[in-house]
Each structure stands twice: as structure tokens, then as C-alpha cells.
């Protein structure tokens, strides 16, 4: 069980999650300081590391639309957020999976800041309202990458397996 610490609306673009003016900062270790920086109150708490791991951000539809900048996923991965949204835009979803950021697709989610959510395999339960909402599976094609903990370990293993199968 974890708490919703931030709620945003529909079509939240990567320009909002991680504005273009900070794009020169690329390293995943450095990007969290700029997460949602145009929402100063939330951003300050991220910077001060006030949120426990697995704290929840709730979004609407089309979360992460726009630019392919991976900083938008890495800045949320750093503080170990879980993002629950009605749906995600394609590139953001892929980036988040590649970096191991936890996402939950929940097309009917209703939750407010402060609510406690519990996740089962099929649904999200809002402990405050008592309602539960069905979860839609992440793309099957990418499950192996999710299971490997991200694309870097997955690719690394693939390269090493190829090497050993060639007997190098």
C-alpha cells in the first residue's frame, strides 16, 4: 500500500514532466531535481527526498505525450515513483519500461492526493473510497524486458549469451 502524493490531469506532456530547458542534463542520477519543476511545491519535495519509495503519481489519459526525451522517465525513476494513469503515450511507456520505472495502466482510476492505493495483479483498490479499478496489462511484447529489470540488463544478457553460444 502506498500514498498518492501528486495528481495531474490528461495529456501531461514531457515538457511538463521534464521541461526542454533542462535537457542538457542527461544522467539518470541528476534528472530528478528537475521533475515537474514548474510545480514548485511538488518539485521541492522531490528534491528534499521527502517521498518514500513507491509513492504514487496519478495521471489522466495520454500521460507522457510529446518528446521522446528519456529524462521524463528517469526523473521519476530516481525517486522510485509508481505512475498510475488512464493510459500512457507510446514512447514514454517504452522509456519507462526500459528504465524499470513502475507504471500501472488503469483506464478508470479515481484517486486524489492523500489517498492510499493497494495494487493486486488485476486491480487498484482505493482504500479511502473503497472502490476498485481494473488494471490493463502492460504490452505483452515487453514483458521480458520488464522481468529483466529494464533494457540495459536485458541487452547485456543477450550480448553475453550470444558470446557464449559462439563459444568466444
Amino acid at each position, binding site marked *: 500500500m502506498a500514498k498518492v502524493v501528486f495528481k495531474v490531469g490528461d495529456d501531461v506532456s514531457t515538457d511538463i514532466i521534464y521541461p526542454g530547458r533542462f535537457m*542538457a542534463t*542527461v544522467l539518470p542520477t541528476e534528472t530528478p531535481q528537475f521533475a515537474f519543476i514548474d510545480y514548485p511545491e511538488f518539485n521541492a519535495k522531490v528534491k528534499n527526498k521527502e517521498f518514500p519509495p513507491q509513492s504514487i503519481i496519478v495521471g489522466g489519459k495520454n500521460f507522457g*505525450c510529446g518528446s521522446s526525451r528519456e529524462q521524463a*522517465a528517469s526523473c521519476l525513476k530516481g525517486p522510485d515513483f509508481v505512475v498510475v494513469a488512464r*493510459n500512457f503515450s507510446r514512447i514514454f511507456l517504452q522509456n519507462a519500461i526500459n528504465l524499470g520505472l513502475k507504471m500501472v495502466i488503469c483506464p478508470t482510476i479515481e484517486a486524489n492526493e492523500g489517498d492510499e492505493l493497494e495494487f493486486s495483479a488485476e486491480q487498484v483498490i482505493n482504500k479511502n473510497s473503497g472502490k476498485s479499478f481494473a488494471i490493463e496489462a502492460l504490452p505483452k511484447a515487453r514483458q521480458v524486458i520488464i522481468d529483466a529489470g529494464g533494457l540495459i540488463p536485458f541487452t547485456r544478457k543477450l*550480448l553475453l549469451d550470444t558470446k557464449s553460444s559462439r563459444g568466444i
Partner: protein
Amino acid sequence: MGMTMVEKILAKATNQAAVKAGDVLEPRVDMAMSHENGALVINQFSEIYKDTGLDAKVWDPDKIAIIFDHRVPAESSKTAGNQKKIRDFVAKQGIAKFHDIRGDSGGICHQILPEFGYVRPGKVVVGTDSHTTSHGALGAFSFGIGATEMAAVWALGRVLNVEVPGTIKVVCEGKFKRHVAPKDLILHLIGKLTAEGANFKVIEFHGPAIEQMSTSGRQVICNMTVEAGATSGIVPPDQETRRYLQEEAGVKDELDIFGPDADAVYDQAITINVSKLEPQIACPHTVDNVKPIKEVAGIKINQIVIGSCTNGRLDDLAIAAKILKGKKVARQTRMLIFPASTRIYLQALKKGYVTTFMEAGAVVMNSGCGPCLGIHQGALADGDVALATTNRNFKGRMGNPNAEVYLCSPAVAAASAINGVITDPRKGGK
């Protein structure tokens, strides 16, 4: 069962007779493009190889292109450092398709790729930029990916676990009226589909209005398909594709000119009669907030921008120059023009467009992304309103979350510059 354009391309890229939407594949990559975010790709690439004992060599340096465009020349020492890191990497790996900050071969990545013949029909192109969708204009399957995904492509030469996207067929009939352009068509379509209407799908364009459209116009519509969430846009290659690649890009080798099967299966079909279109405006703060110009005409504009990978090509500049010739940009308005590549800049110089723009009071900037993302040029003040031929008007785009961006065609931008307010080019500037 017949195949769509993208199904055909992916079948070929995986050596299969047929594939269908929903199949999971690992297609070969023919072109892998990055810009300054190559610095992050390099970082992730070395992470992959960390502690493996393997030599971190890219799979094929000839299939990688890196173009500096987002912040050229560097606006900060941090960006300069990233660019330096990339220069070193490019030299070490033997990547020849590298476009540094130069007046003879620089520009925006999505313009450089076609201009230098790096894109061909039937190929698989990936880029660490969401507008990589642009290259569908030449009949390639071309889509945006993140930096870590690109690092894996550099290592393996294929994209892992790609689900073959379904396709939306858009048939464009009729003829564009004067001062109505491909930009108005794509804005209209995005308004209709909404910002997520094509998520995980490809938009395939057909019909007489597309057949008669120049490659430049096709680049505009494919470029912006991502604003409806699409994985990519694509135009079946034809005589115009051949003309562009041979005459303008200097491509000499055989071209694969093909269309979808007649019995291809589409998720959805949409018909648009372009003869009925009026100039369209995408209003703040989402690209799908599209209105016909009469509903927003008269709104005061502080900054007009013509340029970007969407509308910064020679035909766009020609339209603007024709409207601005002998006129002045309104006193309270600033106008910034940035050609999409240095080649286009040179052509615009020779044709006298640059003179026309400067005499009108516009500022002509170096080729690159410039004000499009407002990192280091043309940022907006609080409360400023911009009208731009670029492709995004999200809150915070152009460097300020407390400003507003409207999107339009080059004709609308030029006519509006003269009046300082959103102006229908069919009614003209004062």
C-alpha cells in the same frame, strides 16, 4: 491477407513472407539517428557493456547518423560538454554521418536525413526524437525511441520486441485552395483524431491530394502524426519520391517503389476533402485544440516564428517571403525565422528571401531547432503569446510555462506578422 505499408516493410526487415498487426518482431534497423541526446545514448551504451568484457563497438557505424541541432551553437558549457563527448565518440567509432555545427552541412536532424539521402523507401529508421515520424514522407517506417532503446540498437542493430502497429488509412481528396497548406490538413486531422487518437498506430496517407503533394508537404504531415500519438506516418513512395531522392538528395542506387496491397487490412479509414479546408490554428496548450482561423483571428501576437522540422523548408520560406515582400513586421511584434538546414538557408539567400525578411524587420537565425523548444533562442516572457509554424504548443514549450503558443501554416504566420494579430492570409496583411 494483404499487407499495409508498414507490415510490408517489417516483413522484409525480418526476412518473412508476411507479418500482421500485433505480431512481435525484432526488425533490422537501416538508419539510427540521434542529436545532442546522443550524449545520453553513449552513457547507456557503455552501461550495457559495463563489466561484460566485451568490446563496446557499435554494430554498424555506417547506419548511425548524429546531427547537432537542438542547441547550436552550444548555449552553455554543459551542452558544449555533451557535444564534445559525442564528437569524441563519433571519431572513435568511425561514424561518418555526423553533422556538426557547420554552415555548409548543418541543420535540423529531420531535414538532414532526407537531404543527404540517408532515408530510402522501404527502410526501417529509428531516431531518438519523437518527430522521427517525418521520414515516412519518403516511404520508410520511421519512429521515435528513447535513448536507452537506441543504445540497444547501437549494440544489436535491431529493435527488440516491436509490436507491429495497426494502421489508420487517411484518404485525402480534392485540391488545396489558395493559402491552405498541408499544415492545415494535418492540424485538422489531429483535431479530429485527438492527441491520443492514433496511439500505437501508423497513419498511412493516400489520395489525389497526397499524390500531388511535394515531398516537403509530405514531411509536414508525417512529422506531425506523432501529435495524434501515432507511432509513425507514411506515404507510399512514388515518382515524386524518386524525383526528390535523385534530384535533391543525389541518391544513385535502386529505389524500392511500392505501395500497400490492395486488400490490406486497416483499423480505421478516414476521408478528408482538402478543398473544403480553411486555414487551421492549434490553440494553447494541446495540439489537438484545433480551430478554424476565423474563431481566433485578431488575437494579439508578441512573437511569430517560422521554421522547425515541420515548416522551415524552402517552399515555406517562399510563401512567407511573397507575403512579406515590401511589408513590415508590426512594431509590437518580433519575428524569428530559422531555416531547417544550412542548405535551405543558402538557397533562401540566393533567392533573396533573407533580404526580404530582414527588410521587413524579421530576424533570420541560424539553422537548428532554435525557438521551437525555447532552450536557448527565442524564449517567451510570462504572458507572451507566440504564433509558430512549429509542431508543439504544450505548456512550457518555447521555454516558459506562463506563455501561450498557437500553431499555424507559414502563410498564416507571415500575414499575422504584418498585422501583429492572428490574420487570415486570404484576407491579407495591411
